[in-house]
């Protein structure tokens, strides 16, 4: 029985409660089912890569904060490691440890928000989101203790970090690390086995391993598809080779697996943090670099495992105090490559949670 129906063109976004910022999907919907979808981005295109060419190397650090604003430290880290690699700058031992601690704290924050907003997209009236936020606020306080800011930290420098940890920081972090596993278990009890969560997210939005690799997805999205790929292990940067941790992977590559992988990564981050706190040495935190320093001519690509995936900076230097060209490999953008394939054929409600489970940050998508 075929009765001809006309599809309608529906704009999901840019001002939509669940597009995580100003992302827009132009969807062709036939009743409830999406027959075609076209992602439209650029609504937050601030020209960061172009601005980099006008600013000196060091002036650009605050701009990296605003890429993936959920986890600014990771962007800082990726950028400073790229420039350090370019100019061959040594980093003190203690600074490396601090960087790892910051990076993992940011990963926890980002995953907490990712999980929370995933459930929000699913329709829980903010409750899991706010529960996650309670923990996030504790971590924000820790970061504020270190950098004086709550969101955009501008903390890392070439050759280390801007200043040492305050004395209260490590004990406070330790207290948090002791409480956190129990809190995660609590959230798990609430969410993991919930029938509606299972019904909504299992086998929904499957990203097959092949498709994940072909679309160059990375981070939790890739790992949920069952591929054990983590730059912290595959190409260790900083001092990640000293820590003992696992790479959680999913089996199916559906929304549920993506959520599970994030939760497991929370635990792994806590493991890394515990080891880092135990092993942090004393000493200086910064090998000073001149304010307007000029790296030698050349180009470098350096990548880290950011909370969203592989975050890379490609810096080309012509020997002046400004980058000749700077390109950012933003994981959020590349994780969206398969979006059209993942969403077509699903219902609007599914599209929202598939999109939510990819967990993008528009600041990074549009740059």
């Amino acid at each position: 029985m075929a009765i001809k129906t006309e599809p309608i063109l529906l704009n999901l976004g840019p001002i939509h409660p669940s597009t995580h910022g100003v992302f827009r999907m132009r969807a062709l919907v036939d009743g409830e089912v999406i027959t075609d979808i076209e992602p439209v981005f650029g609504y937050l295109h601030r020209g960061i890569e172009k601005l980099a060419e006008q600013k000196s190397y060091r002036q650009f650090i605050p701009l990296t904060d605003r890429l993936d604003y959920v986890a600014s430290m990771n962007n800082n880290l990726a950028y400073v490691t790229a420039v350090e690699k370019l100019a061959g700058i040594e980093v003190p031992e203690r600074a490396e440890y601090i960087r790892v601690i910051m990076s993992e704290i940011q990963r926890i924050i980002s995953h907490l928000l990712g999980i929370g907003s995933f459930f929000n997209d699913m329709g829980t009236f903010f409750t899991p989101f706010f529960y996650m936020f309670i923990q996030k606020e504790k971590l924000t306080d820790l970061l504020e203790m270190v950098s004086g800011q709550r969101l955009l930290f501008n903390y890392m420098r070439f050759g280390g970090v801007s200043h040492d940890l305050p004395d209260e920081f490590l004990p406070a972090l330790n207290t948090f690390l002791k409480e956190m596993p129990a809190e995660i278990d609590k959230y798990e009890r609430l969410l993991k086995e919930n029938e509606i969560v299972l019904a909504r997210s299992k086998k929904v939005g499957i990203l097959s391993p092949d498709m994940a690799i072909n679309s160059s997805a990375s981070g939790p999205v890739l790992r949920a598809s069952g591929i054990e790929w983590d730059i912290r292990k595959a190409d260790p940067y900083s001092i990640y080779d000293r820590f003992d941790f696992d790479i959680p992977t999913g089996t199916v590559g559906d929304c549920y697996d993506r959520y599970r992988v994030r939760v497991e990564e929370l635990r792994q981050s806590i493991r890394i943090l515990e080891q880092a706190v135990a092993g942090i040495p004393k000493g200086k935190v910064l090998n000073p670099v001149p304010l307007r320093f000029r790296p030698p001519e050349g180009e470098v690509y350096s990548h880290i495992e950011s909370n969203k995936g592989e975050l890379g900076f490609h810096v080309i230097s012509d020997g002046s105090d400004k980058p000749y060209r700077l390109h950012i490999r933003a994981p959020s953008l590349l994780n969206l490559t398969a979006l059209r394939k993942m969403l077509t054929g699903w219902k609007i409600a599914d599209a929202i949670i598939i999109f939510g489970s990819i967990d993008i940050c528009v600041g990074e998508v549009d740059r």
Partner: protein
Amino acid sequence: MLSEFSLIALFILIVMGFATTLVLIPQALKKIGIVPSKPSEVKYEPYECGLETIGETWVQFKIRYYFYALLLITLDITVIFLYPWAVELKNLGSSSLGVIFSFIGILAVGYIYAWRKGALEWK
């Protein structure tokens, strides 16, 4: 009993009057100037995430939504017949059970047919 229904009928009028007043209050307040009114062309266009609506909105919509309404009409109206039986079951006794079960059985045939035909799946 009739007076009970006339009470209901009058109450319908009261409530409708009340609802209409609710909706019309702002019109009255607009006259005094308490409710602001600044018409503009953009304001009266449909909201779609801050974009202009593209294409037609009132289209031939998917039949799937109405399918359940059709099913309801077939089942719902017949199900209402259960009520008179339910009220009188104590007086009718066990003899009415067979009758009503066969009635439900006939309904169930339709229901199972609809299920098997996939009318209850949302594709």
